[in-house]
């Protein structure tokens, strides 16, 4: 059965390591914060100028001066720090953030990503996405395997305007976990429980690399 968005986040959380600095994009990536293992120190970076983002505030305790990059009211954890946007993107650009998780409309088999613009639709802007994908050392894309029309979002080439090239390392969808091969191709690593290799094959338009038996995810 295909994973829920919560389960995608849960699977991505298993990539976390103690001491990691992590930037989570809007949407499914935000949910990853709910699955940080107990006792593990993972520091969340919000690119509007915060290290050490905590959970949403309790009702009545919202502070308009304290928001995340999605403009949501948030809190901080002990050991947090605030800084300006140049330093924030400076640390991103310098590769200090260990892991970046973001959503995508399309990912190519070379690791290109498109997630900011649909021709013909009102363009809202790329925000910090282009900076993040151009610099992050380890980028995981969290998305559904297919779009609402049932078309694959894992493509030989992106058809939408790109956000960044050759940057995605791993894709976690509702159907599978896939790594990007350095020479191109989606390496199938894990299947969602009960989802067959054939189904993944059918829904992956880009080159799919299948080596040996593909285990089911542990959620």
């Amino acid at each position: 059965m295909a994973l829920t968005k919560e389960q995608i986040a849960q699977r991505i959380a298993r990539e976390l390591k103690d001491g990691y600095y992590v930037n989570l994009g809007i949407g499914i990536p935000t949910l990853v914060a709910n699955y940080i293992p107990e006792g593990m120190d993972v520091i969340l970076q919000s690119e509007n100028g915060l290290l050490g983002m905590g959970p949403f505030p309790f009702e009545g305790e919202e502070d308009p001066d304290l928001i995340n990059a999605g403009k949501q009211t948030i809190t901080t954890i002990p050991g947090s720090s605030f800084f300006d946007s140049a330093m924030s993107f400076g640390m991103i650009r310098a590769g200090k953030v260990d892991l970046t998780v973001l959503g995508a409309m399309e990912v190519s088999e070379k690791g290109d990503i498109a997630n900011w613009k649909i021709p013909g639709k009102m363009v809202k802007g790329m925000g910090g996405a282009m900076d993040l994908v151009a610099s992050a050392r380890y980028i995981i894309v969290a998305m559904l395997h297919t779009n609402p029309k049932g078309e694959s979002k894992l493509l030989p080439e992106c058809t939408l305007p790109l956000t960044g090239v050759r940057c995605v390392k791993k894709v976690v969808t509702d159907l599978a976990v896939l790594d990007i091969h350095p020479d191109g191709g989606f390496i199938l690593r894990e299947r969602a429980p009960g989802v067959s290799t054939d189904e993944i094959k059918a829904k992956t338009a880009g080159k799919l690399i299948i080596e040996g038996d593909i285990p089911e995810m542990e959620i």
Partner: protein
Amino acid sequence: MNKVVANADEAIKDIFDGAILMLGGFGLCGIPENCIAALVRKGVKHLTCISNNAGVDDFGIGLMLKNRQVKKMISSYVGENAEFERQLLSGELEVELIPQGTLATRCLAAGYGMPAIFTPAGVGTEVAEGKEIRNFNGKDYLLEYAFEADFAIVKAWKGDTHGNLIYKDTARNFNPLMAMAGKITIAEVEHLVPAGELDPNCIHTPGIYVHRIFQGEKYEKRIEQRTVRKKMN
């Protein structure tokens, strides 16, 4: 030294039609509410606004858009703003979208006297079109130029009569960068104190960058996305 002005109207009085403005803030967080209101009152037109976002329909830069004062927005994300969309589609408004880190660093470059910087953001995308690309250590970077702005308008939490500024939490964002980058920098603060009351080790924007300062009033500090969790009992 006399940097303190009475209010927002006085602070912005020489902002002229066609000026290039920087406006601090991220979303509606840390925006110069008083100066925006004064700009709307003054009705100055054909402005180019460099600001990470464009406000919402009835708050922030959205108020200036509604009043048809903005010719061009330079932003990273223009969000949810129906009037913005209408003006853009009708051709009344120009928009230049640039990556958020590039926006921040082009402000920093201006404040630090660096004519241009290199960033990998946008390489291989339409953002790179027409731009100079240079490879360093096997990685491509775009050459991006320092912004030039006639006025930078920022909002701080505390400020002193010498123009030293301290921001609060994520309301800092672009404010200190823009404060450094304006030919004339105008700061509105929630609390204006005499020089000497702020801790010199905790100043975010040294007064040398600030030309005019005043204590703003009636801060609404609107929240764009109120997200909360329930208290467990």
